[in-house]
Every structure is written in structure tokens, then in C-alpha cells.
């Protein structure tokens, strides 16, 4: 009983990522993706209307006597099943969002459609960010658009000092990582996990930066690359602010850009012109093919196999 629209929808179920532009709320992104998916699914050419036999009267004479009325059978389409009467087949599609991105930031945003939403809960992997900072000012919300609280000089800052501060930060975060993993550090189990790289915090914990380094330094501006877990974008802007404080100056964050979310990279992200049903379908198919062995996609893979049968 699957109509062509339902078949199109089945091909759309899964995970994919989009590139969220800065200045846009993530809900707007989710809504526009849902609207374009609905458009794509509802415009699949549907089956022709079912027909039924009705008996239409043919009036032979106009004498008005009931005897003259004859009836002929005619096949007439059933208008109560017409899309203009029943409405579109799909009136909403469940599109879920993975880790949120606030309006100031931009970058890779993972979205799930239909059954793919179940896999969104299992994305417990690190994320990569690129933070752009600028020395010299401090604002109330740590970004360059906030209200300026103080201004300082920054001539004394050098690359080595910055690297020292970053190393200190990384050390503190490493300690936090070990603490939150809730494994006894002296056991064999901990050693084996550390060897395989599975040592990580259990469940929701404080944000932890697993890696932080400076990729560009040109005072007053600098760029950091950060790998983290359980973070929020405001926390990352605060990190930039604190780095400024550690260097006995001040810094604001000019941009937060997520370059990777788990196994979704910038390369797979769809830009705004590609938020159409066909492009999203292509991205989802590509994602399921490429992620052969990842645990994240176990549930998705099962659905995929069922659908292709």
C-alpha cells in the first residue's frame, strides 16, 4: 500500500549534515530543511484517482413522468480522494537536530530524518572547532558583538607565551578527562582502554577539551583549533576570554566554527543551495555507504537493509 510519496520518504530516512551559516538560529535551519523535504515528498507524482461506477440519469422526454427516466452506468473518479480535498500526504516530517549550534556560531550541523533520529542519541564522539580570537578587548558575552567591558594592550604577547598557556589548559583538561572516566587509574582495564583510546567521560559531564592548539598567530588576531566533548559554544568563547586573561591581556571571540562532528566532516556538509530533497537523499545514501563499521549507524544500517529488500 506504499504510495510513491511514501517510497520517496523511505529513501530520505537517515542522517546527514548541513553547514549552518552564522547569524541564523538552528531552528530556522531545521524548519527550512523540513519544508524543502515536504515539498520534495509531496510533489512525487501520485497514483491516479480511484474510480467508481455511478448511475447517471439520462432524461429522454421532458414530459416529467417518472417512467421515461433511464439510467446509464459511468465510471467517475472519486473526488473525496483527490489531493485538493484530502490535503497533502505528508503534513510534517520528523527532522531532528544533533548537537545544537547557537546563532552566533556556524559549521557542521547533523540532522536526522524519520528513523534516523534514533541514531542521534548515540553520537558520543568528539567535535572539532575553529575559534577565531582577537586580543585587545573584553566584552560581556565574550564575542565581538557584545558590550565592551575593557580594553588592554597586547604587544607583549608572543607565540611561545600563547603555546604555554594552551599546554597548561590541555594538561588541566586531560586530568579532568581521567577523573570523569570513572575508572580506577591503577587497573589493567584503564591501561587497555587508554591504549585503545577509549578513555573518556561517561555520560554528561563538564565540557572537556581533548586537544587545543594554535594554527594561526598574527597579533591582534589568532586562530585556535580545538577538539572537545560535551561542550557548548558559549564555553568555547569563554575559553578564548580566559586565554586572554592568562596572557595578562584580554581577548574576544570573533567566530566559532564547527569543522567536524563525529564522522561528519565539512566535506559532507550541504550548503544552503543544496537543501533540496534530491541532494539530501544523495547525502544520506552516501553516508550509509561510507559508514560501514561505525557503531553509530548500527540501527540505521538495519533499516537500510530492510528497505532495500
Amino acid at each position, binding site marked *: 500500500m506504499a504510495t510513491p510519496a511514501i517510497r520517496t520518504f523511505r529513501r530520505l530516512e537517515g542522517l546527514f549534515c548541513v*553547514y549552518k*551559516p552564522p547569524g541564523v538560529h538552528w531552528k530556522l535551519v531545521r524548519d527550512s530543511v523540513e519544508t524543502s523535504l515536504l515539498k520534495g515528498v509531496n510533489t512525487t507524482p501520485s497514483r491516479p484517482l480511484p474510480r467508481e*461506477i455511478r*448511475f447517471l440519469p439520462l432524461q429522454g422526454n421532458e414530459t416529467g413522468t417518472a*417512467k421515461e427516466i433511464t439510467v446509464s452506468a459511468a465510471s467517475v473518479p472519486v473526488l473525496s480522494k483527490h489531493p*485538493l*480535498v484530502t490535503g497533502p500526504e505528508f503534513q510534517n516530517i520528523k527532522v531532528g537536530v544533533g548537537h545544537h549550534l547557537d546563532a552566533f556560531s556556524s559549521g557542521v550541523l547533523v540532522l536526522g530524518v524519520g528513523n534516523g533520529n534514533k541514531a542521534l542519541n548515540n553520537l558520543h564522539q568528539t567535535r572539532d572547532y575553529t575559534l577565531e580570537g582577537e586580543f585587545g578587548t573584553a566584552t560581556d558575552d565574550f564575542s565581538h558583538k557584545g558590550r565592551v567591558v575593557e580594553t588592554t594592550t597586547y604587544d607583549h604577547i608572543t607565540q611561545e607565551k600563547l603555546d604555554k598557556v594552551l599546554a597548561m589548559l590541555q594538561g588541566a583538561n586531560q586530568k579532568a578527562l581521567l577523573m570523569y572516566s570513572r575508572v580506577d587509574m591503577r587497573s589493567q582495564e584503564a591501561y587497555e582502554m587508554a591504549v585503545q583510546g577509549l578513555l573518556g567521560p561517561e555520560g554528561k559531564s563538564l565540557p572537556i577539551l581533548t586537544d587545543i592548539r594554535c594554527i594561526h598567530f598574527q597579533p591582534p588576531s589568532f586562530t585556535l583549533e580545538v577538539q572537545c566533548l560535551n561542550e557548548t559554544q558559549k564555553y568555547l568563547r569563554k575559553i578564548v576570554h580566559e586565554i586572554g586573561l592568562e596572557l595578562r591581556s584580554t581577548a574576544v571571540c570573533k567566530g566559532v*566554527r564547527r569543522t567536524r562532528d563525529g564522522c561528519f566532516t565539512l566535506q559532507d*556538509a550541504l550548503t*544552503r543551495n543544496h537543501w533540496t530533497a534530491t541532494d539530501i537523499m544523495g547525502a544520506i545514501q552516501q553516508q550509509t555507504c561510507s559508514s560501514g563499521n561505525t557503531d553509530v549507524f548500527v540501527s540505521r544500517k538495519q533499516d537500510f537493509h530492510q528497505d532495500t529488500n
Partner: protein
Amino acid sequence: MASSFAQSLRCRSHLCSKTVTFTIQYFTQFRHCTTRRGPVALNAASFINDNNTPYQPRERGKQQKCYYSTVKHVESEVKESKYSKDLSGMDFVSVKSPLSQIRDVMPVTENQISLNLDVTPELSALEEISDDEAITISVPSAIPPASTSLKEYVDQSETLSKLVQLGVNLWKLEQRPNVGSMLLRLDFETDVVPRLLFLKDIGVEDSRFGYIITHNPFILTESLENLQSRVKYLKSKKFSSETVASMVSRAPYLLNFSVKRLDNRLGFYQQELSLSVSNTRNIVARLPRLLCGSLEPVKENLKVCEIEFGLKKNEIQHIIIAVPKVLTANKKKLTQIFNFLHNTMNIPHRLIVKFPQVLNSKYLRIRERHLFLQYLGKAQYDPAQSNYISLDRLVSLPDETFCTEVALATLDDFYLFQKTL
């Protein structure tokens, strides 16, 4: 045709209270109804005049067991009995539906539901009756007295099926309160047809009827004299007939407004913007919904242009004659675009006024393209210098043409750049 046919029907039995008579165009196969209580006249015309309770069933007195037919059942019967044009000698099959007696809404009849145990024996289904009697039997159709959706009535109602064939989106209309019942009460011949003919006379194309009725179903309840007087008024203001036709097809609510209101608005645009009569006609013809909406947002937009943007009166006039949509645009978005153009791209007022279509485009589009050009070192918007890029080319070209001609880069590069913002 349909009403005369319906009036000629004489039903021998008491119909169940669920009968609602519509102007039915076709009827289903007859079913045999019992009782010998005497004929009750079906009055189809009375239904149309009864505007109070279109959904309420009619009480027909003490009811008896009535046999209902369904269309599908008819089909199977037809195939089995090889039904042809000749009505004599048909097979009657009685379908008992005791629930039908309970389905009515009127409380009075509920008291009268009682199994009449000493009823006279019913006629056998296989008894042959004359053609007269066969034709007088009519089956009450299984239409619910009240429903949240029009799809249950569309097959039986001539008005609704004709509207669907015109392309009216009934599903959208039934979501609006009271519109569904209003449409059901309309009669196609007397209400809908004269107005559609009137629209055709003005010059509106047939393919637009569906769009117009979907957006403004109340055009079917507006009186013809009013519609004609408003068209006459517009023509008296020197709008040509094609212009009036295009205005009505693009702004379906236009003809529902009184002449006084239309006059008020035309006067407002002429005075506030100090436009000449022909210019006012021009902008109203291109954006007819200026005459339909409220004037408050327009006044606020004008204030924003004057005070926040610091545009002079003649500059505002020029912008509005070129892009009338600025009058109904969202204030915040307009301010955002103007802010970006003036402060970030450093474009002077006179250039913005020269290319007013930038105020009509999307902010993200302007931002991405400008930053791309800046990255390539080509962001030069001053006509006095070389390699000048005009604002209209920046904004109105599609992506591919923009990349190849203006930015001299590939489309993929542009997408890659978008991912670095």
C-alpha cells in the same frame, strides 16, 4: 435539471432521519424500503432555503427499518445481476442496518425508536414491482450530519465537486472557521456561476479561478452589484481593463473592499509619497496588495526610511517606484540589509538609491557574495574606479553566472568558501 428530477421523486416510505437532501446529480441503486405509512414528499428546494441547519437531519416521523445501500455494494450487485438500462426485473437485496435508527441527532425521534413487533410482513425482496414504484424509491445517502472535513460531502455535492474541478484547494479552506459550511450552502447555479462569469467578463483567466477562490472564498458571497461598482470605480480611476484583471487575479481580496476603502488607500499613497497619478497607478498595478492590507506597516516603513536610513523624500520616491515591495517589507530585515550595505560594504546612499533591488534581496546572499568578492580582492563598488561591480549584478544574477562572470571563479569554489564563513 437536478432539482426538477428530485422533486419528481416520491418516496413511499418514511425516510430515516438521517436523510439530508442535496441537489444530487446522480443517484445510487434503489433499495426497498418498508412500511405502508403513506408517501412523504421530498422537498429538495426547501433544503437550499433552509440556511439555519444545513447539517441537521430532517425528521420524517416515525421511522421504520430502512435499508441503506453503499456504493460498493451497488457495484457488486450490478455485476451480478447484469443490470442494464431496463429497470424492471431487478433483484432487490435488503441490507439490514439497525444502527441507522440510532444515528440521528434529534432527541424527539429517539423516543420513537421502538421495535414494532406487530409490523405487517415486509415485501419480499424478490417480488417484482412496476417501474413506477421502482423509480419512486430513493435511497437516503449515507452523509454524516456534521463533519470536520469536506471530503465526506464532496462526492454528493455538485458545488464542491465543481470547485475541486476548478482547482480550489478545499483542504486548505476547510481549516478556516465557517468557510466549509459556507461553501456547502452555496448553490452552484445561482451563487458560483454568476460570479465566475463576472470574473471572466473582467478578463480574469479561467486557470486563475482556483487560486482566487482558494485565497478568497468570500468572493462567492459578495453581492454582484458591489463587485461591479468596485470595478467601475477602478476603471474610473483610469486603470485599464487588463490591469484590473491582473490586479484581481494577483490580489484576490481586492474586490471585497468597499469603494471608500480603495479610494482612501489610493489617496494615501498619492499624498504620502507625493507621487503623480500615473505613478500611483503604476505601483498599485504592479503590487495590488498595497490596496488590500493595512496602512500602519507602510507608514512605519516610510518612517524607518526617512529617519533611520536618512533618505531624502525624492530618494524614497525613486526607490518605491522602482521596488514597491519595500513598502510592505519586514522592518528588521530591511534595516539589517541597509546596515550591512552602508556600514560594512561602505556603499554611499546614492548608489543604494540607484539600485533599489538590493533592498529586496536576502541578507545572507548579499553577505556571502560580498565576502567572497572581498576574499578574491574584487569587492569594488565605486563606479568611478576600474573593475567596478554594480550592485544589481551582485544581487540578481544566479549563482553560476555570478561565479563565472563577476567573481571569475568556479561554482565549487564559491561553495567551499561558504563553508569557511
